[in-house]
């Protein structure tokens, strides 16, 4: 079995556990929806303002809900000390890492599936009509999950991990969120600003690539039982 196959097995295992309880999925999606509603309340109902603020709201909702999901997903591995079992299995660490990141990506994407229609409904912003948004969200979710998985796994044995995870993650991920927000804002411009859109999507791609490479390199030396 190749590394990819092994990684898919790990991801499949994570997603199967999740689908049995749907705990992370429901809580994350609900939290994302709540954030969307709170945002809709916080900003005045002004069509122009809503259009300008919607991209930021979307990506903040994804970041916050994603952090909650990350914390819970790795807590689950900690509770029964299954992370050790997972690392003891005869698959390379790389596969474990890629599998966990892939499962997390699916979860983050499902949150955005809730947030995007909700935000575009509540704020009357045409987010759903633009297919490139899916690409931006996919790249954003990959970047978030990859970086988040590395640090969540490394924080497993640390007492104050819930506080430290956002403290570590957000400064590193700000470029990703800014790129995502800018890409979404480019979509909402009238007429759609394609140059800006593809610039930021390219930025997201390069960012993901760089972080993936460093994460793969660093995961092994950071997560040692």
């Amino acid at each position, binding site marked *: 079995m190749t590394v990819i196959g092994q990684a898919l097995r790990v991801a499949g295992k994570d997603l199967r556990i999740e689908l049995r309880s749907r705990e992370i999925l429901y809580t994350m999606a609900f939290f994302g929806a709540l954030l969307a509603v709170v945002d809709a309340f916080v900003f005045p109902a002004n069509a122009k303002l809503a259009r300008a603020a919607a991209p930021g709201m979307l990506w903040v909702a994804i970041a916050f809900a994603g952090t909650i999901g990350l914390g819970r997903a790795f807590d689950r591995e900690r509770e029964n000390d299954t992370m050790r079992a997972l690392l003891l299995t005869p698959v390379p660490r790389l596969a474990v890492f890629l599998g966990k990141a892939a499962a997390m990506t699916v979860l983050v994407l499902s949150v955005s599936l809730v947030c995007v229609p909700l935000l575009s409904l509540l704020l009357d912003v045409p987010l759903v009509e633009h297919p490139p948004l899916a690409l931006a969200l996919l790249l954003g979710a990959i970047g978030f999950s990859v970086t988040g998985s590395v640090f969540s796994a490394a924080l497993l044995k640390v*007492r104050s991990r819930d506080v430290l995870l956002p403290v570590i993650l957000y400064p590193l991920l700000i470029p990703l969120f800014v790129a995502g927000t800018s890409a979404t804002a480019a979509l909402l411009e009238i007429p759609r600003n394609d140059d800006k859109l593809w610039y930021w999507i390219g930025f997201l791609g*390069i960012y993901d690539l760089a972080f993936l490479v460093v994460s793969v390199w660093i995961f092994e030396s950071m997560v040692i039982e």
Partner: protein
Amino acid sequence: MNRYLVPICASLGAIGFVLTIWMIFNSTPTQVDYQTDEGHVFLSGSSLFFNQKIFYYHVPHAFMLFAAVATSGIASILFLTKRVQKWDDIALATAEVAAVFGAVVLVTGSIWAKVAWDRWWIWEKRLTMSLLLWLTLIGYVLVRRFAGASADRLASGMAVFAMITLPFIYFMVGADDSHPQAGPDGNVATQDPRMRPTFYLSVLTFLLWFVALAAARIRGVRMEREVRELRERGLDAGVLA
């Protein structure tokens, strides 16, 4: 490490402080005969206002910030690959020193901006980059402080990630750059020859200051580790609970 390194660097740095202060207020120009031939405008044209004197401390601090971050990042990579405790000590000590230098850079720059741009803060490329770098450093210090000794690898990972984030932040913010630019030959201090001695002495002073602080802090980190080890030995011997 050499026992005399800290006192020597610190006292040389102290002399440098006094000298640079004297030079900044006595020998640096407030008027520059600066020919602009490619549209470079340094501060406001040819006159350096009095608050330009912030620059003699602001820029060396920024240099030292980057030096400290680079040291920390490289030491972290060495620690992750070689697993020698020494590198982790250096990484931690320089990261803490970098956080202090970063704070100075942000604060002095902000005060300068209040006068020159009439704003405390603008979202300009170098400012954003410095702020995010500083936030990462604070995160690093918090991790080292509250995640315990087992988090050394985690923190090293952070330092490495912080290093690779930097270019992204730099390209992220638009190309409009209102930060004071370097002179025609690439050096801010070459606007006027009368600025150079003070500026270079200032850089040297803060380099010494950086070495002294980092060395002192490395010693502290080692002592912290010694305390941990002694405690463990005490636990084994049954002296401590």
